[in-house]
């Protein structure tokens, strides 16, 4: 999936993305109702969420804080005054008959996000704006035959809508943008980022134009994508569809389309002609939001290390390659685990090899990940394991075996003593005892006269085979480096 190889020779792809990020506040944006996901339908609602007569919205200050944190994290213009407006339309899961959103004057102005491309290059994506709004409820059409059920638990959930410029030029760039943005908004803790639960949903605007043409082509918008894979599939499908239409002499209709993840295709939802007039006007129930800029400055001090900053630091401090850095900065938990091991005097490269290798494989095999289970293996045990490898008490292969045991029996092995007992029980302690090693090597010399001859005649390659045989004979307990020394000494 290289950008360079995938370019269509005739058409340039132009993509802009709107992402709805559900903010992880405890109460809703305009009421004190709870925001817990998965509650019984219509149990997290009050007069305001129901749009009862006489009820009035009052802004949750926590929501402002999260929006400003995002603005700061993309170096955006923070607007000292922003205005909530009403977007008027009728729908059964929209209780008031209007959605409160920011229209002309959003809280966050232009900013920038740097994304990584596959060829290890980076690209700056311009972010037009980010604004606050409330979510609508949910219509459920397949619960009661011939009827629509409405769950208003989601009504009034706080959303930050992040709008990019049409700066993206391929599905791969779009996915990289989405992943980078997702990483950022979870790192600064403004959302739980849960894709399945809809905490991060994207609307993809896409058009194509002949290379060299300045004017954008007519675009379509693919709504409500909640997976990186779906985004890529939907965009690829839509590019093919648009190219096909234009190349057969047709015209693109400006419309909203839905992605069907089963059939991997997009379908028309409504065209521009059906677009409603939302009759936006400033919500008279909510005074303009006026930010105290010194509060904003204080907030900037609380911003955690951003993923981009962390990557740079990992590169400079630990001399790791980009792939390793990507893995080790995937979540706050894995980064912390890594850095705590560094503090315990282990080599960054060695830790990285283990974490990105056997450790990651075992995590995947056990359906675990760092985010959900911050310490799959207690750090002191893993550190002890690394020490034993370093001082040659354990061979690499023995260490792998032990690690697998730690994953499958976390309850049984809790202390370094438990670990030692396990190593003893499995007989995996690496032996450097010269008598033992000499005994094995002598046996190997006796059993492999031809190979020994080859070695003596200068065929170094055969060494690997001989040491392998010796290791087998020692049942993995011997230290291979020492074995090699003994062999060279004895022949």
């Amino acid at each position: 999936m290289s950008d360079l190889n995938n370019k269509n020779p005739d058409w340039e792809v132009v993509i802009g993305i709107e992402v709805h990020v559900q903010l992880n506040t405890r109460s809703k944006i305009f009421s004190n109702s709870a925001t817990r996901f998965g509650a019984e339908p219509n149990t997290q609602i009050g007069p305001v969420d129901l749009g009862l007569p006489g009820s009035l919205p009052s802004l949750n200050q926590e929501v402002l804080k999260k929006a400003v944190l995002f603005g700061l994290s993309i170096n955006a213009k923070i607007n000292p005054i922003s205005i909530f407006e009403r977007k008027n339309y009728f729908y059964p899961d929209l209780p008031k008959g209007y959605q409160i959103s920011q229209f002309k004057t959003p809280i966050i102005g232009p900013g920038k996000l740097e994304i990584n491309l596959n060829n290890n290059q980076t690209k700056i994506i311009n972010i037009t704006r980010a604004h606050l709004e409330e979510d609508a409820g949910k219509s459920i059409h397949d619960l009661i035959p011939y009827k629509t059920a409405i769950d208003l638990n989601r009504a009034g959930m706080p959303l930050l809508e992040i709008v990019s410029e049409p700066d993206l030029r391929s599905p791969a760039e779009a996915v990289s943008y989405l992943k980078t943005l997702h990483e950022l908004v979870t790192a600064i803790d403004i959302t739980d980022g849960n894709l399945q639960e809809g905490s991060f949903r994207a609307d993809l605007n896409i058009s194509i134009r002949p290379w060299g043409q300045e004017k954008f082509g007519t675009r379509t918008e693919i709504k409500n994508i909640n997976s990186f894979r779906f985004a890529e599939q939907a965009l690829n499908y839509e590019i093919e569809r648009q190219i096909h239409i234009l190349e057969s002499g047709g015209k693109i209709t400006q419309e909203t389309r839905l992605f069907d993840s089963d059939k991997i295709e997009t379908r028309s939802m409504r065209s521009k002609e059906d677009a409603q007039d939302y009759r936006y006007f400033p919500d008279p129930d909510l005074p303009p939001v006026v930010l105290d800029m010194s509060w904003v400055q204080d907030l900037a001090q609380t911003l955690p290390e951003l993923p981009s900053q962390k990557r740079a630091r990992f590169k400079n401090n630990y001399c790791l390659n980009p792939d390793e850095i990507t893995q080790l900065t995937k979540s706050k938990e894995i980064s912390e685990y890594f850095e705590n091991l560094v503090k315990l005097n282990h080599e960054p490269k060695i830790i990285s090899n283990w974490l990105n290798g056997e450790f990651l494989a075992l995590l995947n095999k056990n359906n675990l990940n760092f985010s959900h289970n911050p310490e799959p293996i207690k750090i002191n045990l893993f550190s002890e394991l690394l020490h034993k490898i370093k001082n040659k008490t354990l061979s690499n292969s023995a260490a792998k075996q032990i690690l697998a045991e730690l994953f499958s029996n976390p309850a049984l092995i809790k202390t370094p003593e438990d670990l030692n007992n396990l190593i003893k029980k499995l007989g995996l302690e690496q032996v450097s005892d010269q008598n033992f090693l000499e005994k094995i090597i002598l046996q190997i010399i006796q059993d492999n006269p031809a190979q020994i001859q080859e070695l003596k005649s200068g065929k170094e390659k055969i060494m690997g085979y001989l040491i392998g045989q010796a290791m087998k004979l020692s049942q993995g307990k011997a230290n291979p480096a020492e074995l090699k020394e003994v062999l060279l000494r004895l022949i």
Partner: protein
Amino acid sequence: MNNLTCFTLAQSAKLLAEGKISSQELVQISLNKIQQLDSGHQGLNSFITLCDPADLLAQAKLTDQERFKNKNNLNKNLDKNILDLSGIPIAQKDLFCTQNIKTSCGSKILNNFISPYDATIIKKSKQAGLIMMGKTNMDEFAMGSSGENSFYGPSKNPWNLAYSPGGSSSGSASAIAAGLVSIATGSDTGGSIRQPASFSGITGIKPTYGRVSRYGMVAFASSLDQAGPMARTAEDCALLLNILAGHDVLDSTSSTQPLENYTANLNKPIKNLKIGLPKQFFGAGIDPEIKNKIQDSLKIFESLGAEFIEVDLPHNDLAISAYYLIAPAEASSNLSRFDGVRFGYRCENPKDLKDLYERSRAEGFGEEVKRRILIGTYVLSQGYFDAYYLKAQKIRRLISEDFQKVFAQVDLIMGPTCPSTAFKIGEKIHDPLALYQSDANTVAVNLAGLPGMSIPIGLSEELKLPIGLQIIGPHFSESLLLNAAHQFQLNTNFHLQIAPGFGELFHE
């Protein structure tokens, strides 16, 4: 004291404190009068919902017992500065949400609506111990100036039953004028407290926008709506405003301006008070009889030491036009929630969603409400927004600036509340534009968010219908408005007059 005796709020409080009357008696008198005067074809029709009499008397009994206990409990540290108003009947306009009791807003669409929560001012009234007799009639969603736009039929003016008591707080005005209760709440978006107060010969004050919480008040035009007290006297208005006013975290537009004790300054002399008389209020459109009565009342203020200055409100003529764009625009959006989905009226056997929306709203809303939804939807539409809504907002700002300039010169503004006295029921209902004109002197006050008040200053010669004087002040000057009105009422008795046949005011 007989069956038709009327009390002011202050009188009731005093009699209760002295043990000369019980809350049960006050409630019983109110119930008797409502029974006798309010229902039936000849009735005033000032209540949409009357609370259960047995329940009301039980509440009254509880307050009587409480009062008795407190009187005998010398250790109880009662605040002497706050007059105890517990046990006194009040009527609430039917757009304030009340738990367990229907809140209809005068509309068929809410004929079945019972709010699961109390509006903030309902809570405050309950905390003060006031006993809610019922919910008063009103123009549907507070849209109207005559009370005729009510799904429950018009209320009548006690001074002449063929006439309107004004609107939209028609029932509250009618009930106080007839002495059914001494106090009631109203709401004022373009004059809906002041105009009915003027038509019905009572006193009413629309506080500064944001002084009284709007939480739980069914919204008409959110940037203009303001709840306030209606009563017989300025003193009673002050007592009730002390209960209603205050910041509310549930209403983001409610003010954090420190509260005043509105009765504290009532007795201050008003010597050297500078009063502005806008020439626009005394122009060609004014009924000469009203002009004369206003001049007479100003002479009384003059005799109390006030000075007059002619002032200019150059954009006042644009107020009605601006108001009838902004208010419907907000209303069209505010009324979207009445869609037949979650609460209120739903049409029978809807074919589909569109049919459900269209018929529920077509059958549930009355003519005037539909007219304003149409106007409001139109002016917010793409292509018309700038020409109508934005322009109206600009006029609104100019009107505000006019007042600011005037208040740099004067303390208060005075003029007629309405260009005419009450009109006959049915007289103007088919001519909406003529009806809108009756708001000519009141809407500018809402556009500027200022406090405004209407006090009775006498009756017209021939028809004997009440005439009202409007007093307007700068933001948060309620105390001064009430002070000036009270000083006037100390020297006149227009406010003590009760319509013939509706009993007379209690005298010790």
